């Protein structure tokens, strides 16, 4: 490729020809995308276009069949889920996946504590962890609920807690799978505020959404997938003004 190193540095995450097949179906098919380091990137596309599969591949939740992922200059052929924090990546799930039968507070604390295997046996929950957990839970408005089991929360609260849990992991890249789906306006605003705050801290946010209004409001860059392939990519307004996007996704 003819890109100069300087241009390369603008991208924090790139995929080179990655593919994932389920049986005979190609969920992601030779996909090459580049995610800019600055700002919020949104991934859109019809159902089955490979958005969630892409997130699963980038977070090591599913193994790659083919291709290379470049994360911050590191070229990777395989990504193990347990290594993603080391690559400075974390994620949320489309179907909220919390640690259901432990408390809200523990859901956050488990992300904060040490990853060192034997040190964990001797580590107790210290004031520092507690303070950080409180900070995060207050940000997502869940501090009063800290002793409740995660399974007893409402859908919106679960969604918020999952975003809070991701925020607790201090990384650069956040992959959020439909963070706005099914939320009441009030909760929706809260999620927007959280994401804007993370953006201001200079973190890279990649989110999947079906709601074009939110995409327009929140995203700087847009990637449109179709059938596991890249349809269009670029600045939000540029992409949304393309005739094929207008006809395919915006109806008229």
């Amino acid at each position: 490729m003819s890109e100069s190193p300087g241009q390369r540095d603008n991208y924090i995450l790139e995929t080179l020809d990655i593919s994932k097949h389920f049986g005979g179906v190609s969920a992601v098919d030779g996909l090459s995308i580049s995610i800019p380091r600055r700002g919020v990137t949104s991934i859109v596309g019809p159902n089955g276009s490979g958005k969630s599969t892409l997130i699963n591949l980038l977070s090591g939740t599913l193994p790659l069949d083919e291709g290379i992922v470049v994360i911050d200059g590191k070229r990777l052929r395989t990504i193990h889920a347990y290594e993603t924090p080391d690559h400075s990546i974390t994620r949320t799930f489309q179907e909220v996946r919390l640690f259901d039968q432990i408390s809200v507070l523990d859901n956050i604390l488990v992300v904060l504590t040490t990853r060192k295997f034997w040190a964990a046996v001797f580590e107790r929950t210290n004031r520092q962890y507690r303070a950080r957990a409180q900070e995060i839970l207050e940000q997502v408005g869940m501090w009063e609920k800290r002793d409740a089991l995660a399974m007893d929360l409402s859908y919106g609260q679960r969604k918020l807690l999952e975003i809070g849990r991701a925020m607790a992991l201090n990384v650069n890249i956040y992959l959020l799978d439909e963070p706005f789906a099914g939320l009441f306006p009030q909760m929706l605003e809260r999620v927007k505020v959280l994401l804007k705050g993370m953006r201001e801290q200079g973190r890279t946010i990649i989110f999947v959404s079906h709601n074009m209004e939110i995409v327009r409001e929140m995203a700087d860059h847009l990637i449109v997938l179709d059938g596991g392939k890249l349809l269009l990519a670029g600045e939000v307004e540029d992409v949304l003004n393309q005739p094929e996007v207008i006809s395919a996704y915006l109806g008229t």
Partner: protein
Amino acid sequence: MMRPPGWQRITTVLRNPREALTLSRGNIELWANLLIILCALVFMVLKGATFAVTLGTVFGIWAMLSISLNLVVGYTGLLSVGHIGFFGLGAYTVAILTSTTAYENLRTGEIPTFGWPFFAALPVAVLVAGLVALLVGIAFNRFRDDIYVLVSFGFAIISFNVFLNFRALTRGAFGIHDVARPQIGNWVFDTELELMLVSLVLLAIVVGISWFIVSSSFGRVLKAIREDEQVAEVFGYRATHYKLAVWVISAMMTGLAGGMFSSWTTFIDPNSFILLESILLVSIVILGGLATIWGSLLGALAFVLLEEGMRFLPFLPQEYVGQARQVVLGVLLVVLMMFRPQGLVGRFKL
């Protein structure tokens, strides 16, 4: 709303005795605790000191077993019905290493005698259980949920058959006699009271280790793995390592209980290590409550009371006592699963 945790509850009541009434109203946990402990006390007073002491020893052994199993089943979510194998391994290791009886020649030849003291054999028993658990665990780590139950089931069957058929070492169905009693210098722990002491000290060690693990960051990771292994991995924890570690620790403590058991009975044969015992053990853990050490102590106490206590029911002929226990335990479990699936004091449901 959540009730305050145990210790806080006690201090609240001490500060303001009237609080006791409000806290006890509708608090099934508290009543279950009181009822079982009261039963134990009544039994001990009625049946005298000898009974109480035996009860203490047996309780120690079952409590060690149920707490170690709870680490795996309750905290990590791996439903193992194979733990009886590790119990047997511990028991047989202590029996083989300490027994000195000159046996009659079997077709398979004489079994070797080592004549070790109990406290030298016990650490070896723990290590043997741990080592086998490590090898078995590496294979088991590929499985989860229902399949995990089945493979652990297989392990229980295999270990029973090894005990039964590896006659050169275990004497098969003949069993091993004269397992050494614990001994420090010239002090032999020969009486029931002294054995209870050893049993309860070992139990205290098991409780201590388990509490240390589950109250640490490590323990929280175990619970996260129980809830969603894949998500725990996304947050940087290698679930297989954690599962293997807790499995080995649990097996070692089970082996410790086995060693104590074999020294207490002084005679073991494969019939003590059948699959049914393992299922009883899982029942105790579920009865007491998953993911709670106190619950396992309570479950073990309830079970031992049931086991020893039913012998004294006047209307029950002696020959039916054994079967009746299992019936009662079975009914108890069904009722519990219907009305209180989290067990007597637990919060977590399987």
